[in-house]
């Protein structure tokens, strides 16, 4: 009869014989996907990012039913949602809280990868896709923040779009092209709405699917950083693997309970989060004639913003010194004349652009370069990390200290980005910037130093 042979009975059998891919996917990705049994706290955040994505997509769709992407109506339409739409305040607060929680869970998810070497072979592409998701998420947030059309929306967008101005040659035309006007206005709002609700979510969803498929192809890493697929039972199933469903579904639902308590705790009792999640000045309608005294980006962008502000004209010489040192270190570490020449050449060009008069680029350009580099540099991690073991558990104790110093620098940069600058704060953020980049660019050297502990054959697991 041309029907697919099915092992299911009744309605499910009828469906399965017609669309076998559904139950096939269920098997491959759920009941016969074997995940390491030693997942800990840090392994909740991948699942939780998907939960937040779902919250954002659904609440966003309902917001879009009432929101008006028109510079004369946008601000009022948000207040209309808050006051007149049934449950509108709930939907809006879920969406605004979800934006911040998205970054919280994604940052924790990335920290997990740093701790357990989840980006190492064979998961490099998985990591790169994850980095692309992070970039898409930043774009999504940036476009979305303009939509309430408050003072911070307007001036934040103004500042960020003006950054493109500093790109040599094409900068001014590029920023006009992004705005769709010579100033941030109705055209900008309309296109940002389209990007926020159509373009970026589509890209984001596609990337998430690729991310999960790529994960399920190679299998999950685990806190011990060993490949469970290397030790299989007679049935071909990894000895330390357990079916994702039901074990990790119930596990994730348990974690979801904690997450929802935190998420709805904020949504219902502190949606402004003291002005960090919803800024006071964004309750004032956008006014192109009144520049706020202090323009700070959203909290999750502040580490990168701090790096941008730290890059002053006086700081370029320090960057040059760091580049020279790194160039020399690389020169003597690589073998082969061609490679060495390339290293010397790149170092010379960078130094020229940094400090040689008439050739050097403006500090503003370097600030933008540094800010961009601070995010893009994450993509290099699989190749920077040269340690013989993946997980921090079996690396020298001081490697953990290095990681924590990096996290501390990231947090300090984050706090400083929220505050108006003072000479002291700028100096601290410059030190933080050096530490932030130092972690990555020196990793090829420090990650292989020290005494590594023996890695066990099987994962460490204590039955519950």
């Amino acid at each position, binding site marked *: 009869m041309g029907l697919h042979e099915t092992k299911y009975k009744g309605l499910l059998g009828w469906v399965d014989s017609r669309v076998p891919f559904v139950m096939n996917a269920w098997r491959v990705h759920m009941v016969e996907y074997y995940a390491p049994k030693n997942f800990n706290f840090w392994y909740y955040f991948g699942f939780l990012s998907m939960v937040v994505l779902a919250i954002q997509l659904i609440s966003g769709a309902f917001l879009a039913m009432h929101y008006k992407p028109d510079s004369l109506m946008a601000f009022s339409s948000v207040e209309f949602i808050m*006051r007149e739409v049934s449950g509108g*305040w709930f939907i809006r607060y879920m969406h605004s809280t979800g934006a911040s929680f998205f970054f919280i869970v994604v940052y924790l998810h990335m920290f997990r990868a740093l701790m357990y070497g989840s980006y190492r072979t064979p998961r490099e592409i998985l990591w790169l896709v994850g980095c692309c998701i992070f970039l898409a998420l930043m774009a999504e947030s940036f476009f979305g923040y303009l939509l309430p059309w408050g003072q911070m929306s307007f001036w934040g967008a103004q500042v960020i779009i003006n950054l493109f101005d500093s790109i040599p040659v094409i900068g001014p035309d590029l920023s006009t092209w992004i705005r769709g006007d010579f100033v941030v206005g109705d055209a900008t709002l309309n296109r940002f709405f389209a990007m926020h609700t159509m373009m970026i979510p589509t890209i984001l969803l596609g990337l998430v699917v690729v991310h999960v498929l790529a994960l399920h192809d190679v299998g999950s890493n685990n806190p011990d950083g060993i490949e469970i697929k290397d030790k299989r039972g007679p049935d071909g199933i990894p000895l330390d693997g357990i079916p994702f469903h039901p074990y990790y579904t119930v596990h994730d639902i348990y974690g979801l309970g904690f997450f929802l308590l935190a998420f709805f705790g904020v949504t219902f009792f502190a949606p402004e989060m003291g002005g960090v999640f919803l800024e006071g000045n964004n309750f004032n309608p956008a006014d192109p004639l009144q520049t706020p005294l202090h323009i700070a980006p959203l909290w999750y962008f502040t580490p990168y913003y701090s790096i941008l502000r730290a890059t002053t004209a006086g700081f370029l010489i320090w960057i040059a010194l760091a580049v020279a040192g790194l160039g020399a270190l690389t020169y003597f570490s690589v073998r082969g004349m061609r490679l060495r020449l390339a290293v010397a050449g790149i170092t010379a060009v960078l130094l020229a652009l940094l400090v040689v008069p008439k050739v050097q680029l403006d500090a503003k350009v370097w600030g933008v370069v540094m800010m961009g580099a601070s995010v893009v540099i994450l993509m290099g991690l699989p190749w920077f990390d040269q340690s013989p073991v993946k997980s921090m558990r079996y690396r020298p104790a001081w490697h953990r200290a290095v990681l924590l110093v990096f996290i501390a620098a990231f947090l300090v940069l984050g706090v400083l980005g929220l505050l108006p600058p003072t000479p002291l704060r700028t100096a601290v953020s410059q030190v933080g910037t050096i530490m932030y980049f130092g972690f990555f660019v020196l990793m090829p050297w420090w990650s292989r130093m020290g005494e590594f502990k023996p890695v066990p054959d099987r994962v460490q697991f204590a039955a519950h």
Partner: protein
Amino acid sequence: MKNISGFGISLRAGFGAALLAIAACLGAPAAGAAEAPIDHWPTDHQYDKASLQRGARLFVNYCLNCHSARQMRWNRLRDIGIDDAQIKSQLIFGDQKVGDLMTVSMNPVDAKLWFGKVPPDLSVIVRGRNTDEHRGTDYIYSLWRGFYRDRTTLTGWNNVVYPNIAMPNVLWQRQGPRVATITRVEPDDHPPAGGTPGGLVRTVSVFDASGYAEVSRKSVDGGATGEEVSFTPLDPAAAKAFDGDVADLVGFLNWMSEPTAEARYRIGVWVMGFLVVFLLVARWLNKVYWRDIK
């Protein structure tokens, strides 16, 4: 699991270092930060319907002529216990309906001419005035209690919280006359002949109830710069009642900034309760399944 506990210790050490660095930076205030004397709005009548209703009456009588509240519908006032008949008979002076928005008929172009700027819409003003330094409620409470007569301004009024404010003190009849004494210690830009350059000068300005100022300047050797303000009400009873009026008014503005806040708290408690039950069930489910895993 020994690794993990060591990790925890270094985690704490790392965060401790981060917090120290943050504290060091927070200690240094931003240069040129204005020091406005901000009082605290008394929150004891925050949810008191009578107080909110008094605030609504003051708002409609004194504010809603120049300022609009165009995100608010008249009949939303039902939430604070004012019914449609009361709204129609006591609050709406024009031909608006109870379902209309609380708009005003002042033309923005005229407003710009008369005041120099268009009076802002007050629907979300309390949230709009929230900053890192102060709460919006405290700011507006202090602003209202910071007016003094000053003949040198266009309206005859000035304000210690918002110097040269365009808005006159429209509630002055309720407050009664006051004498303002403003003491400022600042670097001396024009030291007298023979005076030490770079010294400080102490200016005491006493504005009488009609707004005429008596200013005395004196060079001082040391001490901190800053501003001190004191008011002497000529009708202390009225001034005290006025403070209550302003507290009611700010309470109303606070309520109007987010009329759904009360529902938010009420529903939130139930949601939290449900989630705790959800968590317990999920915990039990997890435990039952994971029993098999050795």
